[in-house]
Structure formats: C-alpha cells, structure tokens
C-alpha cells in the first residue's frame, strides 16, 4: 500500500535531501524523518508496488527491465586506462525505482566479522593495493546490525564462527531446501560446518508484511508478497508515515550544488518531464550506490572543486570492488526442485578468513543455490559436453533442470586504485550526461581465490553425492551488482573521501553513505553492512544536526 506522502514546495527549505531510496537511502530517510527532520528523497525511477512485480524471465532477466541498463544502455569497459573503451555486456547493474536494488537483491544478509574491519593490521600490507583498515570496528557497528535484523527484518539462526550478536534473530529460519540439505551432508562428511543462511526475508508474518511464499523468484525479481525486506516495503513506508518525508520519483539528480563557502546547498535534477529543477536543503546525503554516487560527485565540478565534489583525495570513483565469485554445478539422482524457495538456505563459512598458508589473500562463504530460470538453463545451463540441440539436448533439459544445484563461493575483492568507475564523455545517456566507464583488472590474489574456492566447491559437490559435477570457467570481473569502495571511509582526508561518520572530508554538510563507503569488500554479501552503516550514520547525523554541526 502506498501511503499518501508529504510534499514540499520548491521554496520550502528542508533539512535533508537524500539522493537514492535504496538500502541505505531508505534507512536514512526513515531514521531522520522519525527524528523530526524534514526530508526529501530523490529517486530517479518510479514507485512500483509489490503487486506490479512479475515472474516473467524474459522481461526481468534478459531485458533487465527493472535495472539501469534498460534505461541507460551506454556503458563502457576496459581492463586498464591505457586501453580504448569498449561497450560492455551487462556492466554495472542496479535498479532504478523506490527501494533501489534492495527490491531485486537475493536477500543474503551476512554480517561482516570483526576481522573484516582490521584485516590490514592482521595480515599486513598487500603490494599495489589500497588494502586498509576501516576507521570503525565490528563492535561499533554491532548495535546497528541488530537494528537491521529487527527493523528491516532478517530470518536466521546462529552458526559456528558467527560474530558476537547483542540480540537474537527476530524470525526463525526459512524452511531448508534440498540444496541446503545436501550442503549440510557434504560439510559433515568433510569436517566443515553448514549453518543457516541469514536472509532478509520474512519467514513468518512480520511487521505487517506477508511471510515468504517460496515462489523462487528472489534474485533480480521484486517480491510480490512483500516478504523480501526491501526498503520499498520496510523503511520507505515508515519514513513517509512520519509526515516529514517526501519521496520524489522520476527525479534524476545530476549535480550537487555548492556555494562560495564550499557548502552544499541542495541538488539539481531533471523531473519526469525533463525539466531542470532544484531542491535546496540544509544538508545533502548521497546514497545512490557506489557507481551513481561516484558519477554524481565527479560531475559536480565547480571552480572550487575542479576535479569533482569531495574529491581532494582523488579517490572518488577509485577502488571499486564487486566481490569475486566461483562455482561448481552438480546433478543429483533425485529432484531438488531448486526453482522453488529462497535463493539459499545453508552456507559454509569455514573458509571465511584469509589464511596466509594458502599463499594468497582472500576468503569467503559458500552457499548452495540454483541461479537459473528455465530460459537461462536451456540457453547455457547444461555441462559443455552435452549437445546444444536435438533429442539428447531435450532429454538432458528434462533430466537436469530439477536435479541440479550450484555451490557458489562469495569472495573478497581487493581495493586497487586503478580499478575505477569514471565518466565517459563519448557515451552519454538520454539526458546527455556522460555514462559510466568501468576500468577493472582482477588483482592476482582475487583470481587465485576464485580458483582455490572452486576446488573446495568441487570437493563439496562430490562429497554431497552428485552423480555429475562440472565447473564453469573461472571468470575475471567485468561488472556486477555489488558496487563498493568508490568514496571510501577513512580518518585521513588525503586517502579517503568520507570520515568515520560518513561526512565528506571536503564539504561539511555533505554525507555519503552506501556501498561507496566500504574500505574492503567483505565476503560477497554487502547489503546488511550497507544498512548497518546507514543506521549508524543516521544516528550521528541526527546528533550533528541537533548540535548545529551540519
């Protein structure tokens, strides 16, 4: 249900304008409006409701109708800055629309561990990277992880090696799937530990929302049940219900405006009719994701900020990280029917920590899943030695689709200064705005980690009893959905973009809080941490505002 919202006139000065209504923007909007501030959220997409979401694989997974690529196909890619840019396949992916990418995420809600925040101190420097400690600790962030659990809504159960938690999960685990049972079996056989995968999905009626209907359409799809705990159905309705939050949809922010004193005064945007408009505010918060936030900063140039706003360090857009992935597929004797249920129900965290004895930096978690709709599976889901047409192909589709699962490793990516998202003036969007250019080469350790983890998943698939095991090739990164590190947090303005409270070092009333704040990548499931950071940032921003320090 869409709640009627407050609207602010052009001349009304509001306390905060927040760019982005997704995982971070939703939390910030809800927290700041609840604290009594007037807030306008700028969202470049529409406000769809759960009942509008579809299971149509062609529209969602191939046309990418919910994602940016459907609206802005012009992205380029290169392995290094010395190469010419070239059009890219899928590239940087995120959703435009209220709730942002939290609408189509898979809802894996792993917390970071204490080590994630201090790996540089624990493991030492890594040559040629920006590997660094975070300026905050797990202990500082833990209360906000608990807030995400309870206020956003996470189901789960404690597991071996979990970081400390101050409150239990608010909801029990979702029912286990066959892939989870098989992962448990393999783990036991190999002396590992399978545990419940924490998911931002309601396992029972929760906070007025329906329980999961196990429809099998989480990743890339919106949840028509409202069970997936996206900002669309959790934070945004609560923000609007305060009567102090307007969500302005179809509003594409193209510049953060500043005055002669170097303070942010608001944002300039195009409305749905293409008219250029302005939204002034006492402070600006960017929560537009690690790619859009970086582009907005880079395009917000002025005589005072010739290289982009908040970019005196030169690090806006640098150090982009996507998380590495590697996987093994397996077919089993009996049906698993992985097209039903949530993405994953069990995960193995035994290889989470980086271990110098492996000879490379990197760690991750392994879950069991099946990422194929029937079209995708038919196109390229079978082992390579099976014919791609004819009777044997048709029989293989029949025999494999319901019997197959994937063991998937979710891995670290190292922050490298030359891995960047920049703007490409030769490829413009429909507004005439420069598109994204991604420059990315996997650090050698990241590729080693993928190969090492694929060997682990192969061992586990065999231990699970698969009758057929195959490894799709390990691939280098050329884009992704986890957009991390491009306005990194740190204490030193020379090497970071925001401070430990997400305040831009260069602009006292500009805050940046989304995946761009990450210093290191974590292990493949960033949204839980993005939202914990947002709850924490909101608390500090509230404090600053009340002290007139914004």
């Amino acid at each position: 249900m869409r709640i009627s919202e407050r609207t602010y006139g052009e001349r009304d000065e509001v306390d905060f304008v927040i760019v982005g209504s997704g995982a971070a923007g939703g939390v910030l909007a809800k927290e700041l409006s609840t604290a009594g501030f007037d807030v306008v959220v700028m969202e470049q997409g529409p406000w769809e409701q759960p009942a509008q979401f579809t299971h149509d694989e062609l529209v969602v997974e191939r046309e990418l109708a919910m994602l940016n690529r459907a609206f802005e196909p012009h992205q380029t890619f290169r392995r290094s800055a010395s190469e010419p840019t070239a059009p890219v396949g899928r590239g940087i992916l995120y959703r435009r629309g209220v709730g942002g990418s939290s609408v189509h995420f898979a809802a894996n809600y792993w917390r970071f561990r204490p080590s994630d925040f201090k790996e540089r101190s624990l493991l030492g420097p890594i040559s040629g990277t920006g590997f660094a400690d975070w300026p905050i600790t797990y202990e500082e962030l833990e209360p906000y992880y608990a807030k995400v659990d309870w206020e956003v809504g996470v189901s789960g159960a404690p597991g071996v090696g979990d970081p400390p938690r101050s409150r239990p999960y608010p909801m029990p685990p979702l029912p286990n799937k066959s892939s989870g049972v098989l992962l448990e079996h393999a783990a036991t056989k190999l002396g590992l530990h399978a545990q419940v995968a924490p998911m931002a999905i309601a396992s029972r009626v929760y906070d007025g929302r329906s329980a999961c209907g196990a429809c099998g359409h989480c990743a890339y799809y919106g949840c028509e049940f409202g069970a997936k705990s996206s900002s669309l159905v959790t934070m945004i309705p609560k923000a609007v219900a305060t009567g102090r939050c307007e969500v302005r949809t179809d509003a594409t922010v193209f510049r953060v405006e500043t005055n002669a004193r170097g303070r942010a005064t608001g944002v300039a945007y195009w409305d749905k009719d293409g008219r250029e408009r302005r939204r002034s505010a006492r402070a600006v918060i960017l929560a537009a994701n690690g790619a859009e936030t970086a582009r907005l900063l880079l395009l917000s140039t002025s005589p005072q900020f010739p290289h982009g706003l908040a970019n005196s360090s030169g690090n806006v857009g640098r150090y982009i990280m996507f998380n590495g992935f590697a996987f093994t597929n397996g077919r089993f004797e009996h049906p698993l029917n992985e097209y039903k249920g949530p993405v994953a129900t069990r995960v193995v965290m035994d290889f989470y920590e980086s271990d110098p004895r492996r000879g490379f930096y990197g760690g991750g978690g392994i879950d069991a899943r099946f990422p194929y709709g029937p079209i995708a599976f038919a196109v390229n889901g079978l082992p390579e030695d099976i014919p791609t047409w004819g009777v044997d192909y048709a029989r293989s589709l029949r025999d494999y689709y319901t019997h197959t699962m994937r063991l998937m490793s979710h891995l670290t990516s190292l922050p490298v200064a030359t891995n960047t998202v920049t703007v490409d003036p030769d490829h413009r969007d429909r507004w005439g705005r420069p598109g994204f250019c991604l420059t990315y080469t996997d650090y050698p350790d990241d590729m080693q980690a993928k190969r090492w983890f694929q060997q682990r998943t192969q061992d586990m698939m065999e231990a699970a009893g698969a009758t057929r095991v195959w490894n799709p090739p390990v691939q280098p990164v050329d884009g992704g959905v986890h957009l991390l590190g491009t306005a990194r947090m740190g204490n030193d303005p020379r090497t970071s973009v925001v401070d430990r409270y997400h305040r831009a070092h260069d602009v006292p009333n500009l805050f940046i809080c989304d995946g761009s704040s990450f210093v290191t990548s974590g292990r493949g499931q960033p949204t839980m941490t993005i939202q914990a950071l947002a709850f924490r940032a909101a608390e500090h921003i509230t404090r600053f505002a009340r002290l007139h320090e914004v």
Partner: protein
Amino acid sequence: MTTRRAFLADLTWAAATGGAAVQLGLVSMLAGCERRIEPFARLSPAEARTMRAFAAQILPSEPGLPGAEDAGAVFFVDRAFGDPFFADTVPIVRAGLAELDARARGAGARDGFASLGDAEQQKIMRLVENEPYFAAARTLVLIGTFGDPSHGGNRGGVGMRIMRMDHRPSYTAPYGWYDAHI
C-alpha cells in the same frame, strides 16, 4: 511491464494456469483457430516454415516429451521480430533462415529447409551450429519454448512440462526429494 502482453496471449496464459471455465472455452476456440489460420505478423510464410523446422530440430518432440513445435515457439519468434529489444538479433536470424533455405536448395530441396527430411536437416544443422545466427535463432526458440506464455510461446505450459516443473505462483516445503527424505 505488462504493456506488451496481447489479449489473446493473456487468455492463453489463463488456460495454462487454470483460468476460469468461460475463459478456457474461449481460449480453446481461439487456440483452435490459431492453429489453422493465425497469420504471422512479421515472419514471411517461408521464414515461418523454416523457423518451425529449425525449432523442431533444436527441441524435437518425442512420446512423453513435447518440444518447441508443441510450445508454439515460432509464434514467439514472430512477435520478437517486432520487439525493439531484439532489433539487433532480427537481421542476423533472418539472414540465417535464408541461409538454411539456400543450403537446403543446394542439397536438392526445392521448397527449402522445411521440406528436407530429419537426417538432411540435421546434417545442415551440424554444418552451421557454430555460426552466430545459429545461436541467435536457438535462443529465440528457447525463449519461445520456456518463456512466459504472455509472449506468445510456451503454449499450454509445454516448457514447464519439458523441465518437469510443477509450475505454481508459490510453494510450500518440502520442495524436493532431499529435504523431504533426509
């Protein structure tokens, strides 16, 4: 997201998912008409014949296992030929269909690829299976077989039957054999 869905296709989907009896009756009637007289909007008669034969080679039917022809994949292809999303694909596939016919004529078939027997069609398929148009046309056939019926293919839920899916809008555990038995 539903703007491209045609009225008839929606009714067909209703049939596939167990719609109201009155709809089913109408759909049966319309579907019966379709089989006989449904015109193709964008495929020429020759292209439609060739695409049908190609689709039947990609996913052939056999007893107990329906194929692309049963799914009406060609009707999806006809729609895809007018869909801006497939604008880059269409000329590639169109040229590919023409090449299949040319190769068939080279093998002595006056009426193109569709008029060849199974063995001769498969011989040509093996010769061209690494051509870019082959992959493009194959993908269209597979979308037409396994995609949402609202796009004109996957008639009667044939794609779900091929995959042995118990296709429903939601499910309850247990989902598979292992979570039911272990």
